[in-house]
């Protein structure tokens, strides 16, 4: 630039002649239509929903100041003991309120399953088999272990049932309410197929309805059958995807389980139709509140446990879910992240292997997991060191607990489960309406005339 010249005016980054952009059909939607019109079927993926919904971030705690007395961090005790199914002869006693939810062997690798089991045992909490049967080593590494009785009954074995500390009936999951499990052919290896009595390499779409019962009346009898087979020792848990939560939970209570597990629409999956993950179910904060009300209305508080899972990422989420009424929390995807999911480890080459950058991977359904978690490929599985992974799972579970304790102490509770809706305020109108807590800075709870007579 010669001396004295004025700098050239830079061109505008936007095109001033353009009238506007479509909100209904942004480029991503168009790409999706292009792909589906080639494919002729719905698109599968792993992970959980992508769109924005009212979520835990829309709630905030109201800790003690002068009107409430706070509890000293570290020095004063804040109990975290959690009991699932107190009425059973052998309730499941957990040291911490968080446990590892059921994720099938098949969706996850052997190394991932056993690492989760070891980490959970270290932390004094439970794991769950998931679909597709028991792998003996998972049972042996878990000090508390749920066995899933799922629609497909893949690998279901009464000999394994009697080894369980709890039996969970899968009725639905929040991520894809009303659908059965999916496992794409790439993951149905000989071993997985044999455990499930299927031909290897097929695209497995599990039934969405149980084979031996249809409605709640039959389910009540089915629960009795499992109780007979397990000598009435272990808690029976029903896992429901959150949809018409209040009515569903009332029905569930009538079937007389020991525990009810509600999975919010934030919940993850190993493989499911993209649209089902986006467009089924209701958010966790609404589901917990309704489930709690249903259990309380039927006078079963303290008898039937309420477990919540779906989109739990940190101790604040745990504490918020407990404050809204959950008795225990289960985690899926965040535990997989403790195993390395979406981490840029040196061995992995995400763009080449799954076509996405670390941090943006949702390709569990392909079985090409770059970190060896959601795969059956022996080469990829080598990338997960189960010893180190177990330790990370333990560390993560421990962190969740001390973070949740931090909020409980700040709210003046010496028992984590003493957190209550009164300790929360909502940051948005939607969250206020769904969670039934007042909008921050007001006495107004959206949709409720008089909060104290809820």
């Amino acid at each position, binding site marked *: 630039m010669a001396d004295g010249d004025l700098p050239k005016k830079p061109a505008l980054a936007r095109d001033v002649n353009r009238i506007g952009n479509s909100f209904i059909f942004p480029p991503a939607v168009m790409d999706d239509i292009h792909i589906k019109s080639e494919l*002729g*079927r719905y698109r599968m993926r792993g992970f959980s929903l992508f769109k924005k919904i009212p979520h835990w971030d829309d709630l905030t705690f109201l800790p003690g100041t002068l009107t409430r007395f706070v509890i000293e961090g570290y020095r004063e005790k804040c109990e975290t003991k959690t009991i699932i199914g107190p009425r059973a002869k052998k309730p499941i006693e957990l040291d911490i309120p968080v446990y590892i939810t059921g994720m099938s062997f098949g969706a996850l690798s052997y*190394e991932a399953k*056993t690492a989760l089991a*070891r980490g959970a*045992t*270290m932390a004094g909490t439970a794991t769950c088999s998931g679909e597709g049967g028991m792998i*003996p*080593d998972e*049972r*042996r*590494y*878990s*000090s508390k*272990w749920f066995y899933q009785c799922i629609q*497909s*009954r893949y690998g*279901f*074995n*009464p*000999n394994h*049932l*009697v*080894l369980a500390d709890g039996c969970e009936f899968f009725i639905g999951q929040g991520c894809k309410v009303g659908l059965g499990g999916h496992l794409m*052919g790439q993951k149905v290896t000989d071993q997985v197929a044999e455990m*499930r*009595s*299927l*031909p290897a*390499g*097929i*695209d497995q779409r599990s*039934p969405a309805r149980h*084979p*031996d*019962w249809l409605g709640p009346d*039959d389910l009540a*009898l*089915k629960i*009795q*059958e*499992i109780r*007979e*087979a*397990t*000598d*009435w020792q272990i808690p029976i848990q029903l896992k429901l995807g959150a949809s018409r939560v209040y009515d569903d939970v009332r029905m569930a209570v009538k079937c007389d389980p020991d525990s009810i597990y509600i999975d919010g629409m934030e919940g993850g999956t190993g493989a499911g139709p993209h649209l089902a993950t986006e467009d089924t179910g209701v958010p966790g904060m609404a589901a917990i509140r309704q489930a709690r009300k249903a259990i309380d209305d039927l006078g079963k508080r303290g008898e039937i446990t309420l477990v919540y899972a779906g989109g739990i990422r940190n101790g604040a989420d745990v504490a918020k879910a407990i404050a809204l009424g959950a008795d225990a929390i289960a985690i899926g995807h965040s535990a997989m992240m403790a195993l390395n999911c979406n981490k840029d480890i040196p061995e992995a080459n995400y763009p080449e292997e799954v076509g996405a950058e670390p941090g943006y991977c949702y390709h569990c359904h392909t079985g090409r997991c770059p970190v060896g978690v959601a795969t059956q490929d022996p080469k990829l599985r080598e990338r997960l*060191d*189960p*010893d*180190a992974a*177990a*330790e990370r799972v*333990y560390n993560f579970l421990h962190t969740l607990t001390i973070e949740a304790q931090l909020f409980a102490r700040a709210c003046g509770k010496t028992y984590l489960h003493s957190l209550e809706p009164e300790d929360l305020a909502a940051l948005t109108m939607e969250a206020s309406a769904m969670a039934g807590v007042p909008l921050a800075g007001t006495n107004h709870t959206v949709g409720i005339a008089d909060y104290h007579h809820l």
Partner: protein
Amino acid sequence: MASVSDAELKNMTQEERVTALGMRTEQLTGKSLYLEFDPDATENFTYPWAPDVDFNKRTELDCDGKTTTEVNSSIRALMKEGYGTVVLKNPRGMHSLGVGILSRLNLIVEGSTGYFAVGLIDGPNVRINGRVGWSCGENMMSGTILIEKNAGSTFGAAIRGGDLVCRGSVGSRTGIDQKGGTIIVGGDTGALSGFMMQRGRMVVCGNAGKNLGDSMYDGTIFVGGEIKSLGVDAIEAELTDLDKAWLTRKLTQYGLMPDKGVDHFTKVVAGKMLWNYDNLEPSEKKLIL
């Protein structure tokens, strides 16, 4: 865990627990995973209960006035005492009768039962003189069940092994999710039998209702009478000499051999079109609507 029990873990300090569970760096290096379990360890691993029973030791058990739980625990107590043949009197349509028996036993039920009769069993030989409700023999692993009269729907749901035989007719969704073993029906079966069947064989001497073998993954269905309609992706296959020999043997064993032999049986197997949806031709895609 292998070397430490739950109770022991409870009484340890966190430090001791870390060591006992093999979480120390020294133990962790060298991927201890596959070696950690002691071969003699039993907790959380071995099947806890398999009493030694004598089939010649026989006893009767009157179910009248007892709850299901009382009857089932009496059966277990009798097995513990070594009784190998137990006769249940007056079951009067009780649900969940005799479920979860994971050992050898000769069980005779004199009467009819409700839902889930002898479900979740592994080993026993059961004879039921009356009728059974829904889901009889559900998820059975091995053994034999013989029902003299009719059975309800979802007969033998998700069974994985053994022989499940009904001399009379059965309801709908027989052998749904079947994963192995053999189901034999002397009479007719209802709609959607063999729904999502995975393995094993099902023999129906009479007629079959509509949508037989709908969405079956694999396995074989033999029908002696008429088939109202086949379900999605179920197709007829040729009855081979091997099939005929097998049918003759099995049906003779349970006294269900038809007078006209087995040549008239129709064999139904999976078309395997739904195994991989992506492989379907455009015109075939409507198959799954």
